[in-house]
């Protein structure tokens, strides 16, 4: 069994069954460990990746479903202007504590900002509530999402 996927713009073939969730394929097989395991049942968002720009939970997405589509992991987000704005905002606001959930938070924020360039607090509540942070960085995540939207808008202007 083999699955060919496009991950961060690179086509790679993996000898895995197509039902293997992306989470485990990315972490254990592709060795892209920025995507994190937290719950494996779609409750925490730590395994979030973008599939054609839309956030999916890696633990709930069979690798086969991603065939022919474009997967962006946290490692790939760094190459995108929106990713740069997000990392820069996350730094400016000093969001991170243990940091384990943050790649998933940033992927969720990227997906939200692609849809809505200027989210208000209610939009952020809706867009970010699928991601758990046990360190409680929510206030700074909220501030960083607003800041990333601003940075990204300024860059596009």
């Amino acid at each position: 069994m083999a699955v060919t996927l496009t991950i961060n713009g690179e086509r790679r073939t993996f000898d895995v069954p197509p039902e293997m969730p992306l989470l485990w394929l990315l972490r254990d097989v592709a060795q892209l460990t920025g995507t994190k395991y937290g719950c494996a049942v779609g409750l925490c968002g730590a395994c979030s990746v973008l599939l054609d720009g839309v956030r999916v939970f890696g633990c709930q997405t069979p690798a086969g479903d991603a065939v022919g589509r474009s997967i962006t992991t946290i490692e790939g987000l760094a190459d995108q202007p929106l990713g740069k704005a997000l990392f820069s905002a996350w730094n400016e606001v000093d969001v991170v504590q243990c940091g384990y959930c943050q790649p998933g938070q940033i992927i969720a924020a990227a997906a939200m900002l692609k849809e809505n360039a200027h989210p208000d607090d209610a939009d952020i509540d809706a867009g970010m509530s699928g991601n758990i942070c046990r360190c409680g960085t929510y206030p700074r995540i909220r501030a960083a999402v607003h800041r990333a939207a601003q940075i990204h808008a300024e860059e596009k202007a």
Partner: protein
Amino acid sequence: MITATRRGVLSATGVLTGALMVPVAIGASRTRAATPAAVAPNAWLSVDGEGHVGVALPKTEMGQGIMTAIVMLAAEELAVRPGDVKVSIPDGDAARFAPITQETGGSTSIRELWQPLREAAATARVALIAVAAKKWGVPAGECAAHEGTIVHRTSNRSLPYAALVADAAAAPLPKDAPVLPTSSYAVVGKPFRRLDGDAKARGKVEYGIDVILPGMRYATLAQSPVFGGKLAGVDEAAARAVPGVLGVIKGDDVVYVLATNTWAARQGLAAAKPQWHADASRTIVNQAEIDANVTAGLAKPGFVAATSGDLDKVRQGAARTFTGTYHQPFLAHATMEPANCVAQVKDGHCEVWTGTQIPSQARSVIATRLGLPMEKVAIHNRTMGGGFGRRLEPDMIERCVDLAKQVPFPVKLVWTREEDVAHDWYRPVYADRFNIGLAADGRILSWEHKIAGSSIMARLLGDKFTGVDDDAVDGAINPLYGADARKVTFQQVESLVPTSWWRGVGGLRSTFAIESMIDEIAHSLGKDPIAYRLSQISDPRAHAVLETVRAQSGWGEKTAAGIGRGVSVLHVWDTYMAAVAEVSVDSDKQITVRKVTVAVDCGQAVNPSGILAQIDSGVNFGGSAALFGEITIAGGQVEQSNFHDYRVLRMNEAPVIHATIIESSEKPGGMGEPPNAIIFPALANAVFAATGKRLRSLPLQKELQKA
């Protein structure tokens, strides 16, 4: 594998410079290679031949920001930029760090390191100054450290550290080097962005769970759901039929499935359908029995933890007495990074890669477990995806080593979230009972406080335990509130449920109970809860935090129906903190935390950005537990399994937080636990203000539904 000396670790490997961490495996052998001279006042802080300041972190980083705080203090004394300090996460090595312990808990890191860290860095600075002064033939007192150089301003000369290290290393270390006055600080006390933030955000930091070794295999496990139960059977053939499964390894109370990847291992475990039988020697219990036993512990005399005055006599003179009993449930840690460990046992060596709060203790535990000498065991520590006390226990390392010794390759053992929740070491169930006598004017005369619950210290101390758990009574034996007579007792009550440290432990238990009781008294007397606290507390630092939250929280302003504010104050972990929580309760009794106002006096602030982050953290972590957190036991096993039934706050439920740090030049206090403790009673008291319902048990959301 790289072999390195301790010095080598400092100067060349496992280095985090600025923000990029390069994790490196350090071998267990300790051959001494030729190393360039370095000024090394101790075994973990040095200035190397190239003039770089290096710090091997004596405490572990689990998100609390200790890495950044330590680097700021070293950078301040040595006049370099924090981003230029080379930081490494060292292996477990008790001897290297003694008398400092690598074990990280109890909000002790800055308190423990404040003096030795600054003294070590000052020693290096004075050593470098001495060499420069000698070269220039000027008094050392005219020289100073500045941006990685020693300068002599009157002659406008300077030399970089690199040019001074060789001579300084050859000379004896100066004694009694003075630390800088805090008034001169340029870095410490000002907000500094954490050093590991960017790499973590980008997914580039290697947590224990991310370690990948050549030839490594993956595993998961199931442990007996009933505490004390044994493995009865397992369908090995079904497990092996799953593609990628390499084998099933059975233990007494555990079964492991090995595979080529974690998913296959998980599939294999599901197929294996392990069967268990309960240990007949143990009584299967339910939560109600555990709670009843703990409450019954309050009826016993208990062991006296603190006593002053003649309690009975003083109580007889009281105009009124108040009693209150408070209950707190088992809690799981539910760190975002589930329990995991990588290990290899080979040729009489054991190497472990994991994120642990107890690297040196784990080394000793594993050496004993495997019957190996300590030098044959290496614990390569990693940054942690949350600790909160969970990683103060070595069980996840022990489980992995038990497996690794049976296989010829390195193995990564990752627990499922369900195993992580159902096989935690839980915050104990506690019960507190007060009998407080007041004078006619409301002044506290007599204070009797009885505490019952599991004793973590008793487990750790064994025969040396004398009846009072010093940690469990933290915050209770010396409360902020004065009394003419006082008696505080502790009664140990155990169940079959394993208990351990959970962010705040005794100080949290005390703060919830005391601040709930005081609030009840204030309301009963018809007094403003902040004004009453101020009238019964003499400590000016406690007054300052209370007055700050009173001024900043809208305290006293009229609220709409269903909205209430609750206050709490504490002095534990050498830190003073007060909070006002504002909650709303709707017609379905759903509690929403709208806003939390916090004031802290933690002495000299090291990194205000980190302090404020800990306040955000405690409010949300503690708030999650206060509102929803509860582990319950039915038929001898934990009923919860994942985030659907062990609920935590999410973005849409997280309150606005407004925090103030009160400037202080007192010795630093701890910051990991106080914000987590302060929020429990602030929320309970706010729910009372909003609803008139006094909730004496947790979690609040469930108790309010019942009320």
